[in-house]
């Protein structure tokens, strides 16, 4: 099931992510974080974690080293 999430992230990376190149202020990047989250926590919880990370990846956040815990 988590493969659906992995495929979605790769679809994003190959299309929109590549067309609008921006570097993420976090490490690992949001897309890598989403992959890690979906792999370790499953599709539902992983997606929720990824969404929360995306929400945190705004101009007012500090960014920095932030792996999936």
């Amino acid at each position, binding site marked *: 099931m988590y493969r659906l999430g992995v495929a979605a992230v790769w679809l994003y990376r190959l299309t929109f992510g590549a067309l*609008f190149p921006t570097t993420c202020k976090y490490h690992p990047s949001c897309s890598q974080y989403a992959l890690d989250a979906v792999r370790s926590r499953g599709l539902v919880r992983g997606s929720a974690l990824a969404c929360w990370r995306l929400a945190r990846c*705004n101009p007012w956040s500090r960014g920095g080293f932030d792996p999936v815990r």
Partner: protein
Amino acid sequence: MILFSPLTPLEHAARHVLDWLHGTVGLPWAWSIVALTVIVRVLLVPLTVKQIHSMQNLQRFAPQMKEIQKKYKADKKKQNEELMKFYRENNVNPAASCLPMLAQFPVFIALYYSLRHFAHEPASQHPGSLSFLHFIPSIADHTTSHWGGFVLLFVYVTSQMASTLYMSATVDKTQRTIFMLMPIVFVFVIAHFPAGLVLYWVTTNLWTVGQGLITRRLVPKTPAPAIEKRTSRTPPRDDGDGGGNGAQRGPEPPKPTPAASSRSQPPRKVRRKKKAGRR
């Protein structure tokens, strides 16, 4: 189809805005797209300004960052992690955040679908000319269907490169080069998109460049690094390698040194300084 059905409200919204810009404001269709782009970017201004400010703040920490890069030269992953930790500790970050970028995603998709429908629907449903500045006959056609499209593609590549230069202040040079070369690769994909979409892209890129230029002028570079450089370079007389640890010392004032005692030394030092500055 199932995947795209949630996007139809977005498409309708984009079409409504375009219809309003065309019908009520009275702009031609192509200029409506430009205006829509400007509206989107104006809404995103607070986000981008914040990012540019943090990029400029980062200049103060350049010596410390270089040190981290040197320290973990062999291990790129570790280097990245340490840099990110450093950014977090000092509350700075050169990279863009993902959220503002994703905010453009729905607009882009909506515009793509509405332009595709433009091409299929009869002209009566979208009265008025679809041309842009007399060199693109229709913004709904594929970009490469007319020579004007190639001009637009050229402008896209240049503007994309320029916006990358201004916005992504990545530390990694190879990554930056990849980003710079990306538009050349993607031009082949974009060639199949409607010209209006490329117009959106060009406008948003030019906006990015303009915004970068203006904010750089308005917000002066912090004078701190110049002072730090002077203080870190004067000590070598005593210590040899200063290392640039960021530890600020109060060096003896260099001005009153009597130059009469050793006239041959000062010019050498000046030369060394110049070389180091160039590198």
